[in-house]
């Protein structure tokens, strides 16, 4: 409840980086370290570069969606449509017609679909006054239908060599997808923490009435938040099209739940106004690492699921305790 505000003179720079709100994320870092130890103990391969890069590549697509989701949730909303908007964008940009124009047009299309869907979400929510949950749920369903309609329910193969090549390209041994993920996170972090846009996002999520009376244009800002989320879905669409070499209406099923879960595990309040992007990204990494550990240890699905539920609870408990003992409970 009560958040302390004592002076913390001896806080290291590192701690501050993971922080932006009082040691909040140290718990998640501890969880990751713990998972790493489990990985090293139970498998030979966990700590290989190849495996760690696999984890990061796996994390990259959900990770990009999570950046957008973090903005929306801190701003007091929710976006259930990200996964299927991504699918729609992947389908749109991989139709034969689009592909014939080459990769620039493909990327443009994917981003435009994402932005367009975000804009529609934002307009429904602000001017239509439909609660975000319902508006974006409707978008989820419609985007799914539209993606099926356009693709004729087939996986559309990416023939463009540039797009197809993204997932195969490595710079200095690291997959390009990981760079894209990192770039989105860095840009997202800067926007959220170092711009007036980010500051307003916190204000609007924290107390929309106060923000309105302080002269912020709450509606316009809310629309922009969903556009940001849609843009991230568009970027993710290109990434998944490259990774799977297809555009498909089946992409991204339930990704919205994964993204929301990562954001919340990362310490962002579902009611808005408070949260950190780093926390969300750590949340994504925790989820992805858990899955990776299961694969490496060759667990059966059902055991995986039972264990995953328990692990999530444990992770959050560790995090809550860490938070409390770091004096910010």
């Amino acid at each position, binding site marked *: 409840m009560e958040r302390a505000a004592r002076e913390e003179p001896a806080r290291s720079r590192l701690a501050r980086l993971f922080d932006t709100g009082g040691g909040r994320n140290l718990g998640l870092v501890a969880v990751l370290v713990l998972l790493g130890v489990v990985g090293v103990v139970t498998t030979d391969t966990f700590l290989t570069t190849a495996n760690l890069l696999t984890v990061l590549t796996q994390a990259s697509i959900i990770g990009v969606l999570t950046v957008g989701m973090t903005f929306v949730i801190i701003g007091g909303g929710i976006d259930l449509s990200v996964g299927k908007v991504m699918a729609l964008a992947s389908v749109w940009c991989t139709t034969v017609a689009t592909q014939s124009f080459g990769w620039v047009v493909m990327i443009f299309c994917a981003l435009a679909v994402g932005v367009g869907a975000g804009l529609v979400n934002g307009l429904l929510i602000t001017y239509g006054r439909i609660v975000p949950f319902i508006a974006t749920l409707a978008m989820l369903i419609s985007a799914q239908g539209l993606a099926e309609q356009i693709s004729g329910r*087939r996986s559309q193969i990416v023939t463009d060599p540039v797009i197809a090549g993204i997932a195969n390209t490595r710079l200095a041994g690291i997959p390009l997808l990981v760079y894209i993920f990192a770039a989105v996170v860095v840009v997202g972090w800067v926007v959220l923490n170092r711009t007036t846009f980010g500051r307003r996002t916190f204000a609007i999520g924290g107390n929309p009435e106060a923000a309105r009376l302080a002269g912020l244009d709450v509606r316009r800002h809310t629309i922009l938040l969903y556009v940001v989320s849609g843009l991230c879905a568009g970027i993710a669409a290109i990434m998944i099209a490259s990774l799977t070499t297809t555009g498909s209406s089946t992409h991204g099923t339930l990704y919205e739940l994964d993204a929301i879960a990562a954001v919340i595990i990362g310490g962002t309040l579902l009611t808005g106004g408070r949260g950190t992007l780093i926390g969300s990204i750590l949340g994504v990494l925790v989820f992805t690492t858990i899955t990776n550990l299961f694969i490496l240890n060759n667990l059966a699905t059902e055991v995986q699921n039972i264990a995953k539920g328990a692990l999530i609870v444990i992770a959050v408990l560790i995090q809550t305790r860490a938070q409390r003992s770091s004096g910010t409970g």
Partner: protein
Amino acid sequence: TSNEAPSSGGASVAAAPAGDNAEPGTPVTIGFSAPAADHGWIAAIANNAQAQAEQFSDVTFQPVNPTNDVTQQIAAVQTLINDGVDALVILPNDGSQLTSVGRQAIEAGIPVINLDRIFDSPLAYRTWIGGDNYGMGVSAGNYIGERLRAAGVANPIIGEIAGIDNLPLTQARSQGFADALSTYGFSVGPRQAADFTAQGGQRVTANLLQAAPRLDAVWNHDDDQGIGVLAAINQAGRSEFFMVGGAGSANAMREIQSGSSVLEATVTYSPTMASSAVSLARLVAQSRGMGDLAEHEVPASITLASATITRDNVADYLSLGFES
């Protein structure tokens, strides 16, 4: 009942190959990746593959965790490639989406046996083995066509309850069904897609029966969801039509045998293909051919035939039925 231990799936394992193929060769590790089992057919696939591998002393079986998320399946197969297995058996969630990772394996020198859902490019697999979805639809269509023609029904109303509409296999089945019916001058009436679950089958059928107050025949693509389909039919108290199932589950066969429900036939799509796929993977990895064939190599593609099981021949097939 269906509640026996999962190992009962072992009963449906295909006979071991004939000839000298059974003799041990160089030890090989076979990696295996399939979608998460969310219904009986997929569960049978995994069980059959496992059971078949256990029959060979020279095979180490390495399955990766099944998943329904394409990107995770890609990661899982990449893990197997990193591990350097000798052969891969892959049943992809989506053939197109795993084509690139299949090619990666081939380029890494690992032969890939592509099971059922086909990759886009032959460069991504060494051998494909799978069922005949189009042929399955044709079998169902022919059976229904023959029955109705024999009964002299003019303008019959024929319902179709498909599986997951997004899968190419569903589209192929529906196409075969429609094509076969058209040779009799019939066409498909109400058609809805369920989701391969009993619950989806029940929901769609309950509504569909309302849309069609009279039906002459129904083809349900999948015997797993068929449990729900039958439940809905019973609950509606409808029996003026007959139904054909799909895949060939033990449960469906028992229903056919008992003759007590509208389910009078099913067209097979047998999960035994997984057993064969493991056998093929072993042979390919050991650079051997198939015992009874003249060629020194394993063929590049093998398509299973879809049989029609009716009350007359169900006894022959019961042992191959998989539990839902």
